[in-house]
């Protein structure tokens, strides 16, 4: 029998599903309800909790188009993580990107209650399987998102904004703008070294060469700081949740380098300059 599908924000799916203990008539009826409902809505997969049965059971569409039931499924091994863009009827088929594994080794109970094992190497099927196991464990696609992403997704589902994208929502652990700062710091370091050279018995030609370096470095650092500022602005727009991308942080980073550059450049003019 076709059952009504639970849709967001119906919280009645937020239950830990109990194990399927009996594989008699009531189980068969439940599986048939899942198949009827999935067929009616042309779904690739459907968990029992999505139609109001709090049991560890779901169906997946197989390659031949038929549905197969998996009871008490557990993922024993998972490998090859990837970002999976998924849709789910509970969230009105709005795509949400979550981390999944492409290779699974699973156990489940068949229609007789006998434990079976299965290896899944197909990315798409593996992702669906993990999504269904998530439902069994009271975990929706939203729960797989990080808190900031989840808040953004909740707003999007309420019609206020866009769904988060794993690639674009978060401050990356390393940013390309850091390369600018890395080069600036190295240039400043050698400027600092050059300030000590007159203390040693170094020829006028060598000092002249170092003074030239200091002049080039000073100009380069100013250019790099300007480049840093604009690239950082670009990243701030790209990574919306990035706290380190805030303009205050960027200006702070620039001021710190300028505070070093200005005295170094002045000192170089008076100390390193051979003329």
């Amino acid at each position, binding site marked *: 029998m076709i059952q009504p599908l639970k849709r967001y924000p119906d919280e009645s799916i937020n239950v830990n599903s109990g194990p399927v203990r009996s594989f008699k008539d009531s189980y068969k009826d439940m599986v048939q309800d899942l198949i009827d409902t999935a067929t009616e809505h042309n779904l690739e997969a459907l968990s029992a909790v999505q139609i109001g049965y709090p049991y560890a059971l779901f169906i997946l569409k197989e390659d031949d188009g038929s549905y197969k039931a998996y009871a008490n499924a*557990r993922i024993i091994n998972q490998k090859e993580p990837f970002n999976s863009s998924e849709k789910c009827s509970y969230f009105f088929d709005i795509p949400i990107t979550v981390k999944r594994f492409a290779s699974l080794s699973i156990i489940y109970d068949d229609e007789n209650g006998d434990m079976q094992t299965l290896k899944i190497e197909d990315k798409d099927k593996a992702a669906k399987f993990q999504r269904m196991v998530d439902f069994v464990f009271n*975990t929706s696609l939203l729960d797989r998102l990080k808190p900031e992403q989840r808040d953004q997704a909740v707003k999007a589902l309420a019609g206020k904004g866009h769904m988060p994208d794993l690639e674009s929502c978060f401050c990356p652990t390393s940013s390309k703008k850091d390369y600018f700062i890395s080069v600036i710091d190295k240039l400043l370091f050698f400027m600092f070294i050059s300030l000590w050279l007159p203390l040693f018995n170094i020829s006028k030609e060598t000092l002249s060469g170092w003074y030239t370096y200091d002049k080039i470095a000073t100009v380069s650092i100013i250019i790099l700081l300007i480049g840093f500022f604009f690239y950082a602005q670009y990243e701030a727009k790209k990574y919306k949740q990035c706290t380190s991308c805030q303009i205050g942080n960027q200006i702070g980073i620039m001021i710190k380098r300028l505070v070093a550059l200005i005295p170094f450049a002045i000192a170089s003019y008076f100390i390193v300059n051979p003329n």
Partner: protein
Amino acid sequence: MARLIVMGGGVAGHTTATFAKKWLGNDHEVVVVTPNANWNWIPSNIWVGVGQMKKEDVVFPLAPVYKKAGIDYRQAKAVSIHPEGKEGSDKQFITIEYTGQGKEGQTEELEYDYLVNATGPKLNFDATPGLGDGNGQIGANTVSVCTADHAVHANSELRRIFEKAKTEKQKILVGTGHGMCTCQGAAFEYIFNIEHEARKAGVRDNLEFKWISNEAFLGDFGMGGLHMKVGGYVVSSKLFAESLYAERGVDWILGAHVNKVEEGKVHYEQLDGTMGEEEFDFAMLIPPFAGVGLKAYAKDGSDITDTIFAANGFMKVDADYTPKPYEEWKASDWPRKYQNPTYSNMFAAGIAFAPPHLISKPAKSPNGTPINPTPPRTGMPSGIIGKAVAHSVCDMIKNGENAHIHEISMAEMGAACVASAGKGVFDGTAAAMTVYPVVPDFEKYPGTGRDTDYTFGEIGLAGHWIKHILHYLFIYKAKLKPGWTLIPE
């Protein structure tokens, strides 16, 4: 004057003996037989195992406490039960072998009117080749935190690993050492406390952490999982655990039966039939539990161990031990009185009673190896059962054999557990969990078998504070200091 003998001085035995003595007064005799000189607050052993507590912080001598309470304390291990007496005497007795009090090795017969078996488990290290030394003790390949002495040794080994990790990569493996283990929570606590200490010691980057467990999913905790409240959201313990393990950089192997341990390597079989090996530099693997190996004899000297004890060595009580398929398991299968069905003056409390079946759904690998957590009966349930048994025995002594027997089923009992994930006044964390009932009742609570309003968890600094407070509170209670009876089990 009646004599109650309590075999075992752990949470269940100590609770039974102390409450029984309080209620019976000096009109009757309470004897405790335990091979240990000290009482050990086992939940804090994990902190000894990472050097955050000393052994002295988690143990105290039993003799002065029992002397103060008026309990006859025998530092000895129980060897056999003779519930019908012997030739020429109908008086029931147990035989004991002293392990202390200057009588080491001496044996003695102790007559009883009532007997409570609260021996706890035998740490069955030898069930896994290489985990034990072949003589029932832990082997040299791994460490343990099951006893305070084990934990002291574990910490010394851990410090050696931390020292090495200053210059080279080291691998830490923690979990269960057999497919039929319980106490996953202790291993969970230990791995995260090591990780916490490694960060404090500045060696985290050189340490690789791996969790190996007989659980079929992370967050099962041997009880089928629960809800957790994390950051304002309610999530399953599976998602919570997966997030925590990922956040703390701990990889995992699930549904695993460790079938062999070698120096620096474990061999395991998984529920999907996969065979694997895992190398390690430091491993703490919880052993499976078994009964302590008590024997029982009839009046004519014939062996009646099978009558009194189940095959796993735990004492049979008023449970339904009829073999039946998983779908027919019921809450009513579980014991309510903890009374031996053959000898009504014998009880079992805590881990010592034989559970009728597992709590988790039984599972076997394609090779036929059973891999699933066994029922947890430690901590809070042990104390509650111990107190109920003390009530029953006292009533029987005072009112005769037909007195009311107190009932408390694990299928009607809630339990709380606080699992530490790192010790520190300001940076500690612990997951505080409550489960109701401990044994799922699928008839009363269709679906998970549990009341989801009371099966709940939350992780945070407050959890750590609670665990630390409980440490002092329960040791205070066990020392029978003023007001100890007011502190719940």
